[in-house]
């Protein structure tokens, strides 16, 4: 956190300042929507290594970070990018090849874990996953957990309801809080201090941001500090949680950003194709990531014609009749 009036910086500075080898990171968005892709690509370009990554169902961003060789450990509920990759392809490869360690939770559990971090409590309860292998199989073995202070000693704890069956509940699963070193989210509007306004679904971005020690916000529109102080019930994240604000139009591309642009089916299909083959994936990265100095470069490469095709309709907030086959 940081209470300055002006936290605006560029993405390279924000990443260099906050994202270190081995850091614990969470990124916002869900599958093919509002992933902070400009930041993800900058992390890949910066060759950050051994990230401990937390995700519920962040799809494209997680897959590219794994593909870029940035991730060594992953706590996750779902690795998929909708129809374009029902299972994220580089994620699948990395797990099958044992090049990353993975621990599985459910979407709700991961969300509760961020919420617990945001609330400053060590755990939160749920009834989800009782009787399943999510309880039984631990991705990180007990011995390892005990030697690493940044990982809780238990994956989760099953507890009898201490209020004797209150509200017809016998047992609950307690899931441990996550407090990432850094959370990165991409939002529609932010002001220079870091107040954030998200349109459409918030997913778990708010909890992810509030749980983190440091927050980087990238935004479509950078607002004057006065502008977001009206109708501020629409601001989901107040500036006290935020460390850096970066103005990056199309910062979620190739994933969608509601009311601004849709996901790009052409990019995502090409990505899925390339991701299946290691060599082609290197070419993909050389072209689309390392071949670009920054996100504006990538957007220029994609071209204004394609960007116009995916631009959002003002009524529905997505690109109507977009060819998504």
């Amino acid at each position: 956190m940081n209470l300055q009036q002006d936290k605006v910086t560029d993405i390279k500075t924000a990443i260099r300042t906050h994202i270190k080898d081995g850091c614990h990171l969470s990124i916002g968005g869900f599958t093919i929507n509002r992933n902070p892709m400009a930041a993800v690509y900058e992390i890949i370009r910066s060759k950050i290594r051994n990230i401990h990554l937390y995700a519920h169902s962040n799809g494209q961003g997680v897959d590219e970070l794994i593909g870029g060789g940035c991730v060594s450990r992953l706590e996750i509920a779902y690795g998929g990018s909708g129809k374009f990759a029902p299972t994220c392809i580089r994620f699948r490869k990395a797990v099958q090849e044992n090049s990353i360690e993975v621990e599985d939770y459910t979407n709700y559990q991961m969300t509760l874990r961020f919420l617990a971090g945001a609330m400053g409590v060590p755990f939160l309860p749920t009834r989800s996953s009782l009787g399943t292998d999510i309880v039984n199989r631990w991705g990180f073995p007990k011995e390892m957990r005990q030697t690493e202070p940044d990982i809780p000693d238990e994956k989760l704890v099953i507890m009898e309801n201490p209020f004797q069956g209150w509200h017809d509940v016998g047992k609950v699963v307690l899931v441990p809080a996550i407090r990432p070193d850094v959370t990165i989210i991409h939002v529609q509007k932010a002001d220079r201090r870091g107040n954030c306004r998200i349109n459409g679904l918030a997913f778990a971005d708010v909890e992810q941001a509030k749980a983190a020690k440091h927050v980087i916000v990238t935004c479509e529109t950078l607002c004057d500090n006065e502008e977001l102080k009206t109708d501020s019930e629409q601001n989901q994240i107040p500036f006290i949680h935020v460390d850096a604000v970066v103005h990056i139009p199309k910062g979620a591309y190739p994933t969608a950003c509601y009311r601004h642009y849709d996901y790009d089916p052409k990019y995502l299909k090409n990505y899925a194709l390339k991701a299946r083959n290691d060599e082609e994936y290197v070419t993909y990265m050389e072209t689309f990531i390392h071949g670009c100095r920054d996100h504006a470069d990538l957007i220029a490469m994609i071209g204004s014609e394609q960007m116009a095709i995916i631009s959002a309709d003002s009524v529905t907030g997505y690109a109507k009749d977009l060819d998504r086959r």
Partner: protein
Amino acid sequence: MSDELEMDYTLREMMTIMAAREIKNGDIVFCGTGISMLAAMAAKNINAPESVIFFETGAMDSKLEEIPLAVADPRVMYHTSANGGLLDSFAAMQNPVTGRRVIGILGAAQIDMFGNLNSTVIGDYHSPEIRFSGSGGGCDVASFVPRSIIFMQHEKRKFVNKLDYLTSPGYLDGPRGREMAGLPQGGPVAVITDMGVMGFDDETKEMYLAGFYPGVSPQDILAKMEFSVDISRAGQAVPPTMEELELLRERCDSQRLILG
């Protein structure tokens, strides 16, 4: 019979309509990506106009003028009763007042005779032969809600004696399984495959064959499963009507993104 051989509908259409028919007015429908979303849209457009479609991502009561390709597709955000987040959706399902009205639609890589699902790995958890997407909200929904429908491909390696990983609870090990584990009452009511529809016995909670599609025999179905199920209650499933097919094709997936 000639009307079977000259099917004027696809298997995916048949499966979608079979699932849609399980959804009633007054149901709140949790759906995932793909055919389950199409089933929810079909129910809303055909037989259950007062059902409510909602997504784990926080979208409640989406209009869905176009079919979403993911539960976070911006298409789920249009014309909703609320655009919240994951916490809102899962809390509504775990909340007994609202959760009891929810019907979940799930899919998986493996299913066992008690309707437990694996959507995580084939092989060893730590070095799997095949890794799938993982639970996502699947385990949450299967844990919380009273009824769910499961889509499966009917293959021997998918209807297995023992799951490689139990991702989402069905009836666990039988009639008292959920209760013993501490889960709320619930479990699958139907498994809809490319060959037929399976139900679960009220008493034993074991899977049985409820219906087979035109052109498929109960024996064909048994041949595609590692475990055996009761086929004595099975009848031929009623194919989609022309009206159902029209509404499905025109209103739900005119681009055939899911129907193929």
